[in-house]
Each structure stands twice: as structure tokens, then as C-alpha cells.
């Protein structure tokens, strides 16, 4: 890396420090933590786009699947719900999978023709009715168990950090299915397929209450770092607060936030180390060769589809990991809050602005764009106040403009993406 990278990172650190000094340290730490998570997501997207030129428009889906893993791993199980319908729900899921497998077997074994189509259809129809006869009542029974606070199966009650790799695995599984279907075809098919799967993942999270409590949200998920409330009573925090001259509450939340920051930085560091190693290895050279000239890479005997599938799964797994980390930081899974503009397209802006094909660039993009995303909103409000300052108080237009100031940041991000793509397509820290 030339001097430019460290300089830009130093500037970024300075900006965060300014937030700490002039706004509050709590805010600075919050931005830092979310930046670290965003950076990991950007790393995942960068693997797909920067290494292989694959266009994944479903980042939201993969992060949400990762978030689901946290609930399934870390939440305590709900014994009543398991008794009410746990076996039925699991059996239903198995039957569903068995139906699809049976259809595939029938499709592969029978000779081509009308009989095959009818047989596959019959298998699917029978399987569907058996599955829904088992699955439907079981899930209803589960959702009826203490619906105000439970109404779902709960998780395994394991330590929450264990959920992070599981989240990556979940996302990898989903990515494998999507990639298997849509890779090897026209390059925009993958984009459209990932757009679809991310909508479906969110729909499943929202409406399969027996699994994720749906729009009722799962809250109070176990955290890997002590909560600020618990820290407030710790003597060392109190003495730290005294020596800093802050109040205890603020100190506790900063300390807790720093704990997360440490954990996240550890994960991010490991990922960067691994991806840099991969980038500089023969494997990385092969990926770039495929990206830059697919035809000649294929002529050299590379199995392009398999390599694409591998990197697509890998990148999505990283997104899933980040999604799991985000849920364990918030301590809650809120399926209603997953929005494609925030979780897919913003990550893309990070990668493009930071520098696609450069791991450090993607990380820097994550920091810069998240910082702007948080800070543009007050700037937008200030701008709108300036614009409307000449208008009469209470006029409809003024109220409307002030109310819609928060949408300014979508606009800003779009303009930033377009400008970077046009004038500096290689990003802040270009690919070497």
C-alpha cells in the first residue's frame, strides 16, 4: 500500500475523534462499531465484485440470514413450544426437503418426455400436501405458546459468539443455492436472482413466527460484551469515570462499546489478513485472470463456473458473518428493519467509493460511507433549514421540506456513487 492508504485511514480516525470531541464519545463509538461491521460486509462484497466481477444485489438477504443464526444459536430454547410442536415443525421441514429431493431424483431418473413432467409434478403436489398437513398445525401450536413474549421455538442457548460462524454458514448455504442456479448464465441473471432471494429471506423472517417471532422481533439476545447497565455498578468503571470526569452512565456505555469494537476489529483484522493472503496467492491470480478475461481463462482449463460459485459463497458467508455480528451488537433481531437501500445498496456504495478489488479500499469505504450516512442527516436538516429560512413559518411547503430532510441522504449517496463511478472508478484506494 502506498502512503495514500494510511493517510486516508488517519483522516478517517481524525474525523471520528472530532465526533468524539465535538458531539459525544458515545456517538463516535457507535459509528466506529457500525463502521467495522460495514467494513466486513464491504469486504464480502468486494470478494465477489472486486475478485470475480460478480454482481450481488442481495447483500441484505445474506446479512439477515446471518442475523437469524444468532437467534437460533444463542436464544434459550422454549420447552413448552418444543413440546407443543417442535417435532412437527422439524418433521415438516424434513418432509419439504425430501419432497424436493424426490422431485430431483425423479427428474434425473426418468427418460425425457411428458411422463417425466407429470411425475415430477405429482411428486411435488403429493409432497406439498403431506408437508403442509404436518407443518401447518405444528407451527400454529408453537405460535400459540405464550405469544406475547415467546411463540417461537427459541434457540439452542449456546454462547453468542458461536453464532457468528454459524451465521456465515447459513449465508453460505443460501448463496450456494442461488449461485448454483444463476451462475454460468448471463451476468445480470445473478443480480436479479440475488435481488429475489433477499426479498424472500426477509419475507420468511417476517412471517415465519415460529422460527424468528416475525415482526414481533426477538429482543434481549445475549451479548458477548457486558451491558452498560451491568458495567455501571463495577468499581473500576466508577473510578475510571471519576478520573475522566465523565458521568458513570456515559463511561459504561463507552467501555461496553469499546469491548465490541475490540471484538469486531479482531474479526476484521483476521478477515483482512486472510483475504490479503488469498489475493496474493496463485488462487488470487487465477480469480483475477478469470475476471479480466473469462474466455482465455476457460481456454487455460479453469472451471469458471465452479470458481465463481466458490467465491460467491465465500463472499456471502462474510456478509452473513457481519449480519450475525450486527444482531449480537444490537441484542435484537428486527426483521422489519431490513431495507434493501440500507443493507444492499449502501454496501455497494462503500465498495465502489473505497476501491473495488482492494481489501483496504473496501474497508475504508465502509468507514467513510457509514460516517457520511450518519452525519449527512443532520447536514441535510441544516441544509433544508437554510433553504426554508426565507419561507413563512407554518407554511405547508416548509413543513414538508423539513420533514423530508432525512431522504436527502439517499440522494447524496446516489450522487456519490455516480460521481465515483464516472470520475474515479478505481476508488479511494485503487487496486494494485
Amino acid at each position: 500500500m502506498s502512503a495514500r492508504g494510511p493517510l486516508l485511514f488517519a483522516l478517517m480516525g481524525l474525523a471520528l475523534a472530532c465526533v468524539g470531541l465535538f458531539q459525544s464519545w458515545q456517538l463516535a463509538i457507535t459509528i466506529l462499531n457500525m463502521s467495522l461491521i460495514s467494513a466486513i460486509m464491504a469486504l464480502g462484497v468486494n470478494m465477489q465484485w472486486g475478485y470475480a466481477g460478480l454482481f450481488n444485489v442481495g447483500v441484505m438477504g445474506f446479512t439477515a440470514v446471518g442475523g437469524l443464526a444468532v437467534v437460533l444459536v444463542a436464544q434459550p430454547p422454549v420447552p413448552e413450544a418444543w413440546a407443543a410442536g417442535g417435532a412437527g415443525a422439524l418433521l415438516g421441514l424434513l418432509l419439504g426437503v425430501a419432497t424436493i429431493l424426490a422431485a430431483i431424483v425423479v427428474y434425473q431418473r426418468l427418460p425425457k418426455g411428458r411422463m417425466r413432467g407429470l411425475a415430477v409434478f405429482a411428486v411435488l403436489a403429493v409432497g406439498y400436501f403431506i408437508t403442509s398437513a404436518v407443518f401447518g398445525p405444528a407451527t400454529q401450536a408453537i405460535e400459540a405458546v405464550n405469544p406475547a413474549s415467546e411463540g417461537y421455538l427459541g434457540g439452542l442457548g449456546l454462547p453468542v459468539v458461536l453464532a457468528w460462524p454459524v451465521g456465515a454458514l447459513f449465508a453460505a448455504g443460501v448463496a450456494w443455492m442461488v449461485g448454483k442456479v444463476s451462475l454460468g448464465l448471463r451476468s445480470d441473471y445473478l443480480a436479479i436472482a440475488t435481488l429475489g432471494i433477499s426479498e424472500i429471506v426477509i419475507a420468511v423472517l417476517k412471517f415465519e413466527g415460529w422460527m424468528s417471532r416475525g415482526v414481533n422481533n426477538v429482543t434481549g439476545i445475549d451479548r458477548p460484551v457486558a451491558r452498560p447497565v451491568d458495567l455501571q455498578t463495577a468499581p473500576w468503571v466508577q473510578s475510571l469515570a471519576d478520573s475522566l470526569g465523565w458521568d458513570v452512565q456515559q463511561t459504561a456505555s463507552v467501555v461496553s462499546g469499546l469491548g465490541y469494537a475490540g471484538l469486531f476489529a479482531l474479526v476484521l483484522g483476521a478477515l483482512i489478513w486472510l483475504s490479503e493472503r488469498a489475493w496474493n496467492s496463485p488462487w488470487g491470480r487465477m480469480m483475477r485472470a478469470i475476471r479480466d478475461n473469462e474466455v482465455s481463462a476457460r481456454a487455460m482449463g479453469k472451471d469458471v463456473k465452479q470458481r465463481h460459485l466458490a467465491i460467491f459463497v465465500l463472499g456471502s458467508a462474510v456478509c452473513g458473518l457481519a449480519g450475525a455480528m450486527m444482531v449480537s451488537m444490537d441484542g435484537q433481531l428486527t426483521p422489519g428493519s431490513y431495507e434493501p437501500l440500507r443493507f444492499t445498496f449502501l454496501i455497494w456504495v462503500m465498495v465502489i467509493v473505497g476501491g473495488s478489488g482492494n481489501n483496504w479500499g473496501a474497508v475504508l469505504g465502509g468507514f467513510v460511507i457509514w460516517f457520511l450516512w450518519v452525519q449527512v442527516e443532520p447536514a441535510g436538516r441544516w441544509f433544508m433549514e437554510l433553504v426554508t429560512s426565507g419561507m413563512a413559518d407554518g407554511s405547508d411547503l416548509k413543513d414538508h421540506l423539513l420533514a423530508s430532510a432525512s431522504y436527502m441522504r439517499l440522494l447524496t449517496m446516489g450522487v456519490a456513487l455516480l460521481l465515483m463511478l464516472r470520475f474515479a472508478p478505481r476508488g479511494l484506494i485503487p487496486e494494485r
Partner: protein
Amino acid sequence: MDFLNALVSLSNFMLIPALAYGSQLALGALGITLVYSILRFAHFAHGDTMALGTAAVIGGTFALQSAGVNIAPLPTALLAVPFGVVAMVLYLLAADRLVYRYYRRVRAKPMIFVMASLGVMFVTNGITRLFMGVGETRFEDGERFVFSVREFRDFTGLAEGLALRNAQFITIVTALIVMVALFWFLNRTRAGKSMRAYSDNEDLALLSGINPERVVTITWVITAILLVLAGTLYGLDKGFRAFNYFQLLLPMFAAAILGGLGNPLGAIVGAYVVAFAEMGVTFAWRRVVSYMLPDGIEPSGMVQLLPVDYKFAVTFAILVIVLLFRPTGIFKGKVL
């Protein structure tokens, strides 16, 4: 009688809504397929541009309404459509000049175009929300029904009722007119033929003196007309909410791919297949089935294959099946 009742119930709750929805999708998918065959990229900003166009129409409608202009029994919005079309033609041409033209000139990879259209989508989305917020706006006025459930029952004496909403009727008729006009344009006019030639073989078209920039401009103009109409009809039918238009992107792409990207006829067929599949799978067949079964036997549940929330899953399943078994679509794509 039972059979008639079943048919009427089915039409009321599924066939007519699906026909209207399919027509709206078809207009949208036609736009996607046109952009794809001329500019050769997947236009991700389509849904949001549709929303912005509809927002312009809504603005025009409100202005007309406050000026006391109306064309009852038809909704005032139809009168405001030309305004929306002009606005969107200007908007899309501006986007083309400011964003896409550069990438055309440097012959960028298709993925770069898609990325740029993502940026345009972001900006469009921001502008729409700036004007309209995120809530729902209804702008349907004029007569609500061509005929209502009660009128139908009194007329036919059947137990089941059938209503045809004005918005649905207008949608189906407009879509039909627009499709016919589009095919006439593509097959009979000089400009349409030059578009087809350009889509078929770019180099050959250039050699025979077709001006590519002109073809591109015409494409954007047609796309603007199609998407403003699609958006307005969808909004009249279901109310305007910016996010719903973004979500239309998936069914529209699925329709275009199912029919064969770049094939207008395919886009229309694909749109109706997607619409009927979505509605059919998420439709509660209980009433229809109970009419069809012999007396005394009633289905126990709703007889609904999937809850309505999963209609996108249906679209996605169609997409996956197409990609697995016939990636070029029903009609071989990539010809106009």
C-alpha cells in the same frame, strides 16, 4: 348454477385482479425489455423511475383537482399522464446524457451500466421520497366501479357477486391499446424498424446509416411512456407507495426473463404468467372449491397454497425454473 357461482367468485377475486396486475406488469416489463435490447443492460432504476413518474402524475392530478378540472367518470390522473410522461422523458434523457452516454462511449462492460443504473435508482428513490414521503397516497377519483357487486347480483340473480373496478377496467383497456400501438410502431414505422435493426445487429445497423444516439433517445422516450402508464395504472389500482414500486422490480424482471429478455411479445406473455401464478398460488380457493364440490362436502381450511406474503417467492420460483430449464426464456430472447 354452482359452476357459474364458482366462476364468478373466481373472476371477482382472482381473474380480474390478476388480469389488471398482469397488464401493469406487462407495461413495466416491456420497458425493461426495450432498454435491455437497445442499451443492453438490466435497468435497475426501472421501478423507482416508475414511482417518480407516478409522483409527477399525482402532482399534476392534485393541481388539476384544485383547479376544478375533472373528466368524471374517469379518474383525473389520466389527464395528468401527459405531464408525467414529459417529466419522465426529460428525466430519463437527462440520466442518459449525464450517466449512461459516457459508458456507451467507452464501451464499458454491461455490469458497469447496471451499477450506474443502481446509482440512478438511488437518486430517483431519494427524489421520489423528497416529494412524496414514504406513506401511502391515494389519488383515484371519479367513478369507482364500472359495475358493483350489488348491481351484478341484481342483474344476474346469482349468489356470488362480481365487481369491476374502474381502475381495473382502465388498466386492461389502456394496456391493450398501448401494446397494439407499440407493435405497430416497432413493425411499421421507420423509427421502429431502425430500433429493431439496432437491437438485432448493432454494427450492421451503424453501417446502414442508423444513428445510434437517435435510436437510444427514441428508446428512452418509449420507456418513459410505458413506465409512467404502468406506474399510474398500478397506483390507481392499489394506491401509491414508493417502496411497492421498488418491489415491482422482481416480478417485472422475472416476466421479462421468462418471456426472453429483449423480446416484447415475451415480456407481455411473461407478465401475465407471473401475475396469474402469483395470484393463483396465494389465492384462497375455499369458496370456489366449495361450489365445485358436491353438496355437503366443505373444504376444511382456506385451500390456499401459500400465504399472500410469499407472492415474491412464487415469482422467484418461476425465475429459478426458467433459469434452470430454459435460460433464454419461452420465446428465444435477444431479438426485438
